[in-house]
């Protein structure tokens, strides 16, 4: 045996599973691409002072940052030259074909969470509607992970939606634009609560104060350009910490392709990318945590099943630009975390499920990413943007995703996933939200609302849904065990039977920790 337990993947699920099995010497295997060396000396402002040209760091030697000028939209974080490692090699090693689904697959150490906004939201009971497990089964794992990763936030009107405030760090600084919005909301929150809108501070895995050898967040304006800021949690921090403390072993440059089982255990098969030779690892139990799409690929390939279609979930996303006229042209020296600065939950009377929004400032990305979205003549876009930017924000709205027969994936015999996703489940709520935001002094227009194409949320899930009594070989039990196997467990979002509106990463971690803890506690 190479290990008692092998964990495939080092992203949010793999890292949390490794944490749950840290006393059992698990072996984590994946491709594990790592970021290139930093290219910035200090903060972005300091780098601008010290260097006449930041071309390599901001634009890239291959002009990577110009991606969206010529190709389909890629998030500013993922197109940045120093962030390309996140999806490097994925197109060739884990190919996916779709005309309607723009997926990003990561083979990096830490996975897609290298580019996440660090939103950490507990699923409460209403979010877990349709899951075979309840909030009480996840809460101990949320609690442990909150202490492990460090989450800043506040006890405010979002408390009933976000769950326990135990062990939260103080919230990050609030720029004037957002403190104004929050102040106006708080003064009239009775009105907004009756309409179903709650606004408050986000729960984010960003340290507002130093903790466990990690520094407090320093507002260096580099979050969109390089990863590895130790104040922002990524799963790679957990993997590296566990490796350094000798609690786990980690083998990178391995592309896991399949598994098979016998009465003694599981054999995990893969490709050593450096030697291009096939490799196999023996273990008693295997945990697949390669991300929902790649986990589905491994399961289908292991069964050489090129016919079955599996369900797939993904949150539809809308961006709602908003303008606060009070802030037009007004300078604000308060530095701003470029992720969610405020969160909002909208659940009007009679709605079956809440909708979550993250409110972002237009800071952090390159100005060139959006300059020509302003409807001004080109000579005027730069001066006008300087006046408007202090007053602009965007509400990123996620919609729940339920299984739909048209949204599905298959694997072909060449190893290519084929995804069909014609039905992004979006509700016509933007006009109502604009009306509510207007009462907060924020103005927008329905024609400016932008709907991202399916796949853009990166919240892929639901391929191997968890049920109390699995009836198909492509379902998992509540212990995470894949039906039809003796000792193969699924720990990532593939097991989510539906996706609520909330960012699912923290729940992926909590569930993976729950599954791993169950394995750790099992006899033998």
């Amino acid at each position, binding site marked *: 045996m190479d290990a008692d337990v092998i964990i495939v993947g080092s992203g949010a699920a793999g890292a949390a599973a490794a944490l749950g099995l840290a006393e059992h010497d698990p072996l984590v295997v994946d491709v594990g691409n790592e970021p290139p060396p930093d290219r910035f000396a200090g903060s972005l402002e300091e780098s601008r002072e010290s*260097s006449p040209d930041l071309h390599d760091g901001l634009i890239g030697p291959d002009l990577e940052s110009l991606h969206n000028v010529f190709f389909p939209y890629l998030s500013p974080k993922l197109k940045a030259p120093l962030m390309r490692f996140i999806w490097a090699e994925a197109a060739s090693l884990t190919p996916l074909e779709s005309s309607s689904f723009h997926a990003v697959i990561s083979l990096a150490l830490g996975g897609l969470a290298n580019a996440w906004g660090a939103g950490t939201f507990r699923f409460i009971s209403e979010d877990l509607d349709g899951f075979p497990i309840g909030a009480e089964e996840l809460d101990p794992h949320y609690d442990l992970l909150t202490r492990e990763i460090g989450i800043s936030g506040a006890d405010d009107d979002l408390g009933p939606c976000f769950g326990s405030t135990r062990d939260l760090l103080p919230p990050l600084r609030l720029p004037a634009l957002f403190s104004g919005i929050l102040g106006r909301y708080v003064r009239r929150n009775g009105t907004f609560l009756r309409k179903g809108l709650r606004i408050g501070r986000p729960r984010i895995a960003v340290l507002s104060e130093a903790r466990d050898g990690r520094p407090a967040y320093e507002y260096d304006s580099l979050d969109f350009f390089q990863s590895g800021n130790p104040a922002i949690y990524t799963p790679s921090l957990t993997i590296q910490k566990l490796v350094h403390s000798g609690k786990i072993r980690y083998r990178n440059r391995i592309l896991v392709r399949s598994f098979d089982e016998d009465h003694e255990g599981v054999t995990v098969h893969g490709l050593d990318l450096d030697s291009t030779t096939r490799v196999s690892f023996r273990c008693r139990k295997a945990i697949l945590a390669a991300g929902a799409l790649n986990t589905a690929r491994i399961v289908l390939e292991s069964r050489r099943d090129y016919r079955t279609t599996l369900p797939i979930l993904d949150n539809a996303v809308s961006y709602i630009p908003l303008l606060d006229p009070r802030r037009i042209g007004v*300078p604000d020296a308060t530095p701003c975390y470029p992720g969610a600065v405020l969160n909002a939950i909208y659940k009007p009377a009679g709605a079956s499920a809440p909708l979550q929004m993250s409110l972002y400032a237009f800071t952090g990305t390159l100005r060139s990413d959006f300059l020509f979205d302003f409807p001004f003549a080109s000579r005027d876009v730069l001066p006008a943007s300087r006046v408007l930017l202090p007053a602009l924000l965007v509400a990123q709205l996620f919609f729940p995703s339920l299984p739909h027969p048209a949204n599905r994936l298959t694997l072909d015999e060449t190893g290519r996933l084929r995804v069909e996703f014609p039905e992004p489940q979006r509700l016509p709520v933007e006009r109502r939200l604009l009306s509510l935001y207007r009462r907060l002094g924020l103005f927008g227009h329905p024609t400016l609302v932008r709907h991202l194409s399916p796949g853009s949320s990166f919240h892929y899930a639901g391929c191997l849904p968890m049920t109390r009594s699995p009836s198909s070989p492509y379902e998992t039990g509540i212990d995470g065990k894949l039906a039809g196997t003796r000792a193969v467990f699924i720990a990532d979002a593939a097991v989510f039977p539906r996706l609520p509106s909330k960012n699912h990463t923290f729940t992926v971690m909590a569930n993976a920790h729950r599954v791993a803890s169950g394995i750790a506690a099992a006899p033998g």
Partner: protein
Amino acid sequence: MAMSEESAMAGASDAERPRDESWRRRRAEELDAFHRILFDAPAPEPLLLRYLEAYSRFSALESTAPLVDRLIASHSDLEAIELAARLRDPDNPLTRRLKVLSYLAEARREYAAHFYAPPPGRLRGFVLLCVAAMRTAFKFSIGAVRRSELDGR
């Protein structure tokens, strides 16, 4: 997505493209024209080198170069035509060139004041916005009439 990007870039290899002095001069004139629109000055040499690099990497620039050459040669109001075109199609050849220039300039310290100067205050800000809106309306009225020049008509 990455695959299509790689193949698009591969399809635009330097070897397939004319790179004589006349071609370089036309690209310099083109960059100057766009640079004057955005920054009210001719483009410096280092930026031209980056701009030529963009031509090497993105075939969509080369394929639309004759159209842009024609607009520049006829002294068309590029800014007006670009605005009218952008409001219908943000991926038109003129807007793409302005975006490329904007990205390349933003990384350079000498352009920091254009991109990152602090806002001018509320009153001056409103005045500036009003002027920009009126100028934009004027440019649009010209561009709406001449947009057909972008289609080669």
